């Protein structure tokens, strides 16, 4: 069930309404049942895979607290390996197998193992990471073990963030299932506004841009550099609106029931460096990697070389997490390179910029924002391209063959809709980033202003939205 579907429009009020009507003692069970139903609307049998992950980590955590020393560590390692094995089989086996088969062909070896014919379970990487974070936190002693199997299952399966995050931590989410949430109009209003804005980002901006991006990226050889450049910029905005739109709907729908999920996006394209970008983009994943990979490897409390290695490794793993394809690995490596290069050249860049502009100059800030956006957009080429060869073609054409912009009759109109949608998005994002509190729309104390904004947004969605219930990009991860 997609958030941008009529099914969800029926499911959400029904689940929320029943949640508040039921006695507190039964609410967790209702949410768990609703979450199972939500997940089973994709591929029903795949709930068994989720059950395996849940069972492994539920019992592993109990054994971890009931043992000590080497045994305790053994259960942690066992849990991590078993959970990751499920992820490997469904997400990475074919990629691994194809590469080994390719190598075998190159060396003229006989390699008989065939690829698996399976579909990747939706959101597998998300709930795997959420489940792992629980076991690790229990091992570290920062989280009490959860003995109620139903509540633990709900922690992994809570429907708003089940298939595309935010990847929650047990300290933030688990205790909320025990709290009695009253119907609070403030929570409901906040949640619904967030959902409305998320829906706008998804159906008005992301899905509209997708029309142009797909047309161009599906046939990169037929388009000139200018078109490919525009499609790349559009994809950067599309993926932001798609994913942050999903996160907004997830956080909003949880908030309506009184649950507070972590922030996942904080206007990342206003970042002035790649480092800042990663503190504002997919925050729940970035902090997961920071807590469970970067810091255990030593973080920045090691020699400079090891520090750079740590950063690079984290981003390579981040690339692999996103998808079983070399293009994702290159995307991750590029970001790792950006970060390391940024650190190595920090002093030189500061001195150079200081020759022309002061550190607080608005122009310098703007230049930094634009450069960061362009660097991130360049990396998106690998993320979106169907293959490494396509990415090569796109990059080569952008830099060597600008040519003409692809605009025929219908495309021209789609482009206008896209530009209009981006302008609306930008107006709101700029206001929130730079004019905080000066102009209020959603938060206005004047009910007429608020109602006008709500009604206006819904009218814009009905008139300009793309209503083909397009899949969310991050579902595939």
């Amino acid at each position, binding site marked *: 069930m997609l958030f941008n579907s009529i099914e969800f429009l029926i499911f959400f009020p029904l689940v929320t309404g029943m949640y508040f*009507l039921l006695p507190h003692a039964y609410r967790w069970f209702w949410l768990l049942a609703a979450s199972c139903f939500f997940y089973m609307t994709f591929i029903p049998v795949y709930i068994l895979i989720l059950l395996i992950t849940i069972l492994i980590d539920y019992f592993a955590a109990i054994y971890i607290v009931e043992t000590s020393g080497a045994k305790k560590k053994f259960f942690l390692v066992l849990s991590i390996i078993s959970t990751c094995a499920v992820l490997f089989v469904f997400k990475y086996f074919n990629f691994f197998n194809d590469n080994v088969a390719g190598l075998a062909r190159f060396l003229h070896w006989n390699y008989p193992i065939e690829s698996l014919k399976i579909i990747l379970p939706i959101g597998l990487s998300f709930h795997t990471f959420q489940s792992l974070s629980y076991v690790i936190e229990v091992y570290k002693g920062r989280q009490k073990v959860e003995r109620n199997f139903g509540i633990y299952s709900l922690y992994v399966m809570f429907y708003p963030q089940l298939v595309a995050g935010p990847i929650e931590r047990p300290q933030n989410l688990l205790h909320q299932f025990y709290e009695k949430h009253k119907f609070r109009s403030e929570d*409901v209003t906040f949640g619904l506004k967030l959902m409305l804005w998320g829906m706008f980002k998804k159906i008005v901006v992301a899905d509209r841009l997708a029309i142009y991006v797909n047309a161009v990226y599906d046939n990169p050889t037929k388009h000139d550099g200018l078109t490919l450049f525009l499609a790349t910029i559009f994809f950067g905005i599309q993926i932001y609106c798609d994913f942050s739109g999903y996160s907004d709907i997830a956080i909003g729908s949880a908030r309506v029931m009184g649950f507070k999920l972590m922030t996942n996006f904080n206007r990342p394209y206003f970042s002035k460096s790649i480092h800042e970008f990663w503190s504002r983009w997919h925050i729940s994943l970035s902090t997961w990697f920071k807590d469970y990979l970067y810091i255990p490897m030593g973080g920045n409390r090691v020699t400079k070389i090891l520090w750079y290695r740590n950063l690079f490794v984290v981003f390579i793993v981040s690339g692999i997490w996103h998808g079983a394809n070399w293009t994702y690995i290159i995307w991750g490596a590029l970001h790792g390179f950006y970060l390391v290069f940024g650190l190595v050249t920090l002093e030189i860049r500061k001195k150079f910029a200081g020759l022309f502009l002061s550190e607080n100059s608005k122009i310098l800030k703007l230049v930094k924002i634009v450069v960061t956006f362009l660097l991130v957009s360049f990396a998106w080429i690998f993320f979106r391209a169907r293959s490494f060869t396509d990415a090569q073609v796109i990059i080569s054409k952008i830099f060597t063959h600008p040519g003409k912009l692809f605009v025929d009759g*219908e495309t021209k*109109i789609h482009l206008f809709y896209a530009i209009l949608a981006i302008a609306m998005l930008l107006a709101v994002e700029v206001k929130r980033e730079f004019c905080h509190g000066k102009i209020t729309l959603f938060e206005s104390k004047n009910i007429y202003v608020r109602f006008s904004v709500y009604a206006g947004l*819904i009218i814009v969605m*009905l*008139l300009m939205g793309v209503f083909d219930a397009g899949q969310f990009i991050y579902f595939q991860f």
Partner: protein
Amino acid sequence: MPGNLFTFSSNKIFVIKVLALCFILVALDFTLGKGLEKIYFSQKSGKFFRTRSAIETTRADIVFFGSSRAIHHYDPRIFLSLLGVPAYNAGARGQDIVYAYSVLQGILHRYTPKIVILNLDTRIFKKEGKFERLSDLAPFYRNHPELRPIIERKSKFERVKLLSYLYTYNSTILHFLNYAIKPQLDYDGFFPLRSMADAAEMDEPVGVVPSYTDLDAEYMVFYENFLKDTLNSGAKMLIVISPGLAAAGEHAFINPAILKAKDLKIPVWDYSNDDHFVGHRELFADHAHMNETGAKLFSSLIADRLGGEYPEFGFKPTSF
């Protein structure tokens, strides 16, 4: 305590506000939607105007159907001047057999043309975005019951979505503005292209007719129904494969769509390898579409053959 939804007065006020907002939204949806309806049905040019003309106003004896390769290839003025019979081009850019079938239902609901001509190519069987372009027909949902079952194929809950007047006119506003600023003139549905194909287009195959596996089964049903409904209405049915800049090759003759037409004793006129057109860049705007010069020549050729082969309509043979 269960059922504590309305314990606090602030929550009651909240519910009243939600209901008020819902009422405002319904009122706005209706009034703005009605305004858009008025604009839509008063269009004087552009794709909405052409769709409306085909479904609601034309009474032409010859009606052409198909994708962009129909709308740019058949000039009704030629048919009127050579045969003395009014014709209408109901082809539509980017559209498929489902759209053609829908428009045919709108036409057959009002009258029976003498002959229906379907321009056959792969585009009318396109698989990507299946049923998506049916949104072009949404404005006809309320007043054309004959189109409802087809429009409802767009999505599972299309019937519910179309309760909204604004949704009915989704993605139309910029078209209205575009056509108001720059009218897209047509000649009884025919929309001429006025450029000439680049030399690079010479080798691009049109893909006039693909192999069987490329044809979508659901679309084949629409195609078959298109042919049968036309025949059942009493109109003659003719299939034409118009030429591309490059020759289509022999695969054109093994196409199941052609075989299906032949099963139903429907003539198929194949011009995909016609020497008058293939390789003549001056007659094409791009590899797949003829320009106005090419369309006039092609229309004359078809009109001439129609005059010769359908004398029962009073078509007069010309001397092409």
